[in-house]
């Protein structure tokens, strides 16, 4: 009896490490893993299936993230499948501590914890300026240049900044 060659085992950790190199198309300093949009990764003998959660339902970057993930995983398996799911809602609490740090380093206010699930919103809370750390900031607009951000202004360093929505 001749032995069939066993399919090469794909290392799950290597797949996750590769995903951690896929940047968010709008804020490249943050990876899709740090943003918390990777819901699950199924590694099979000849296919890898990744499920991602959109940060906002209407996020136009979702298709770019899908194809970037597919491209990055080429070579790990014969078939790469990336599906969008709403199985659990993406919330800003899914952003990792590393992701928060990188957001702040890029000039974005990281979201506050969405500690009240009935009212997941930043309003009325003192937010720190990502440039000088002052909490004397005011909201200019609950809506911003992308669906996931609001516009704030720091009255100390007089710098407008974009604040990730708590959602």
């Amino acid at each position, binding site marked *: 009896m001749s032995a069939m060659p066993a399919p090469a085992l794909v290392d799950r950790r290597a797949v996750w490490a590769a995903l951690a190199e896929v940047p968010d198309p709008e804020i490249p300093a943050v990876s899709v893993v740090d943003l918390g949009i990777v819901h699950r990764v199924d590694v099979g003998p000849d296919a890898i299936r990744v499920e991602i959660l959109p940060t906002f339902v*209407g*996020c136009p970057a979702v298709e770019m993230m899908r194809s970037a993930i597919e491209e990055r995983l080429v070579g790990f398996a014969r078939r790469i*499948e990336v599906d*969008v799911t*709403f199985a659990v809602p993406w919330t800003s609490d899914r952003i990792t501590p590393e992701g928060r740090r990188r957001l702040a380093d890029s000039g974005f206010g990281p979201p506050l914890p969405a500690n009240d699930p009935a*009212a997941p919103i930043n309003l009325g809370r003192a937010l720190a300026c990502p440039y000088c750390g002052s909490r004397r900031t005011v909201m200019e607009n609950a809506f911003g*240049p992308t669906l996931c951000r609001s*516009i704030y202004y720091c009255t100390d360093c007089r710098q407008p900044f974009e604040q990730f929505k708590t959602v």
Partner: protein
Amino acid sequence: MTTIRASLATAVDPALRNGLAELLRSLADDEFVIGFADSEWTGIAPILEEDVAMSSIAQDELGHARAFYGLLGDLVGEDPDHLAYDRPPESFRHCRLVDHARGDWAFTMARRYLYDTADSVRLNALAESSYAPLAELVAKIRREERYHLLHVDAWLRRLATAEGEPRDRLVRSLETLGPDATTVFTPLPDEKALVKSGILPTPMAALRDRWMDGLAPVFAELDLPMPPRDADLARGREDHSDAFRWLYGEFTSVRRLDPEATW
């Protein structure tokens, strides 16, 4: 995008399929039409911050519409873009409330207030739907709609408590829209079966009453005219206006230039 949902969609009892499709179509068309109408403010809103806000809100609504068309597409085996752009105008099932032209700023805010609060009551019920793909999507949408509600609540109060023209325009708009307000809750063709199966956890008439109960204290506080409880439900999601036919011409114009184009 469709693998998981498509498998769930095929598991739907065939007797419920049409009713569920009508529910999804009404949700998608409502969001699509109001999203498109509100996107017209891009570039011409009264102040720059509202230009940003309305553009963002409109984009949210179009995103919600796309997701609802996605669920509908999984169920009936059609492409979401085809559902959004290739149907004749008379097959749209959006409610009369969103069928009006956008009007002036007060009119847009009046309509957004009536629609967002009504939609919120509807979404709260659908979050408990027995059709898992719908319940999951609605759980996500509800978190985003919080921002819309806060935005429009601030505008309603600002216009209602201003003296003179702003308040007059708001009141006139609410009087024009009032008779169509409860068309959001137009009963669905197969509603009994949808309620029994838990796909629609609460009948539309009960949701309407829940919405009116929530609206009454706010409108009493601001001395605004309450919409009548009963709308002309025979026209609730049909009989569209010339304003809609104009909007339809706008939102299908690029698609019609080259229906086969790949974007």
